[in-house]
């Protein structure tokens, strides 16, 4: 079960058992967005408060597997208090970490495997624990659900950044 332990690292199980920033902010004023993973039934409700160009508060509700839940929890902790620019950057870094496998697949299909862009996982802090997910491509969608929902919330909150 070596692979499994790579997927279910201690940090992940910890965030799964004790999710941070759990709940819903009153909306409005908070931005409220629902995300679905239609393939497995995961649902997420993300409420977000933006104040002076920063994520001043964020809460997560919904249900899902350990990967989607811990990813949401880790994300909420990581973005809370950050400026929108920093958040956008973090999203980019996280997504490149996650999409390594997808990119490889697509490139293989094109007949020309390309080296994935190196990702500076140090900048991800605790989030780096989700790295093991890329070995389980089906689960990437679980890990990215909350992040996609966050992107949607940001886009809806500030159309000028979209």
């Amino acid at each position, binding site marked *: 079960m070596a692979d499994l332990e790579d997927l279910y690292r201690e940090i992940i199980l910890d965030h799964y058992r004790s999710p941070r920033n759990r709940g819903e902010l009153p909306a409005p004023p908070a931005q409220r967005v629902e995300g679905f993973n239609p393939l497995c039934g*995961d649902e997420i409700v993300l409420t977000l408060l933006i104040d002076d160009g920063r994520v001043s508060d964020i809460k997560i509700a919904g249900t899902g597997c350990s990967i989607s839940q811990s990813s949401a929890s880790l994300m909420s902790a990581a973005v809370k208090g950050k400026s929108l620019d920093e958040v956008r950057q973090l999203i980019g870094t996280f997504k490149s970490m996650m999409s390594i496998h997808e990119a490889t697949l697509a490139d293989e299909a094109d007949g020309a495997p390309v080296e994935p862009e190196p990702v500076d996982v140090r900048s991800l802090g605790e989030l780096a624990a989700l790295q093991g997910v890329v070995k389980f491509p089906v689960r990437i969608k679980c890990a990215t659900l909350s992040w996609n929902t966050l992107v949607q919330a940001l886009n809806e909150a500030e159309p000028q950044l979209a």
Partner: protein
Amino acid sequence: MALNEMTGALDTELVRKDFPLLARSVHDRPIVYLDSAASSLQPSAVLRAMEEYYEAHHANVHRGVYATAEEATNLYEGARVDVGRFIGAPDPGREVIFTKNATEAINLVARTWGATNLGAGDVVVLSEMEHHANIVPWLMLAESTGIELRYLPVDIDGRLDLTGLDAALDGAKLLSVTAMSNVLGTINPVGLLAERAHAAGALILVDGAQSVPHVTVDVRALDIDFLAFSAHKMLGPTGIGVLWSRANILEDLPPFLGGGGMILDVRLDRFLAAEPPQRFEAGTPPIAEAVGLGAAVRYLEATGMERIRAHELALSRYTLESLAERLGEDCVVFGPPAGEDRGGVFSLAFRDVHAHDLAQVLDQFAVCVRPGHHCAKPLMRKLGVSATARASLGLYNDRHDVDVLIEGLAEAGRLFA
């Protein structure tokens, strides 16, 4: 025929030899396939039939004079007869329509029978345990025509609650229900539902996607009006499903999709539709797939649906007993207890481990189970869960498969302790 010489019962060891995929290993372990409710495996006989079709008889059907075109047509129409016989259809040549899958079959009814017989305020009765395939087509029809949908509730045991049946059917034009739940395993009393629907002046459509592969379904004995099912859940290939209906109903329906094969005549400004079943089979049909489905039906017949049901019922009992014995209250199985009204489908909850994680751990044991909402989100909401891990049986499963499942569940328990 893979039968035990002494008892006449199914000999699973022999059956398993017919299914090439069971020879596979995953993560260095022999595969344990427990996902037949999503899609069954195919016996070699089915694969050989399709291969032989392509290698020796392939041609487009219906319009050819030459030898292989005639052979292809006979094979295709022969499959119609096989399928009709299997479900007790009085007149297969006019009543069995080949579709893409069960989903298309139900959509076909909604778009032809529904669109011409239902208007604003007309009532269609569904149940809370329906697969999306038997909900969304009616929601789409409701959007365009304003029909009203009513849902038969599911009771605490996972059975249909029929106390309000007659009230629900009052004024209804159609009852559309699954014969067997793909989440709970519940086998619904279709004969009784048909009787009550007819008494209320409604027709009945039966979603047989889960029942046709596992229990004897006889459209005459059940006295139903429409039956929809998919080949890929009954040892057949992907890419083909079936709609059966009575000839006198089909005759009055408008066409579904337009194109070659479904017409008598076409002019620049009008067309004349062909008779059923051609009227509903626009374009080149799934020919090889029909051949494969015919072979699947003959395999099921040769094995015997009664034997298959007996085997799966016994294995269902073993599964439920073993889960209870070895995992105790940690493991919840939704749906009714093992018995005549339950098929081999087990939606599991194990402690607070999410279905997705259960399936992931089980995969390491080469156990194939399906996590998720199983295309039955309304039912999941009713059960108060967002996902279950579903193990489902086929005629090729044995006790060892169940034992490995339980071993894997126990490991998931340890991992998430």
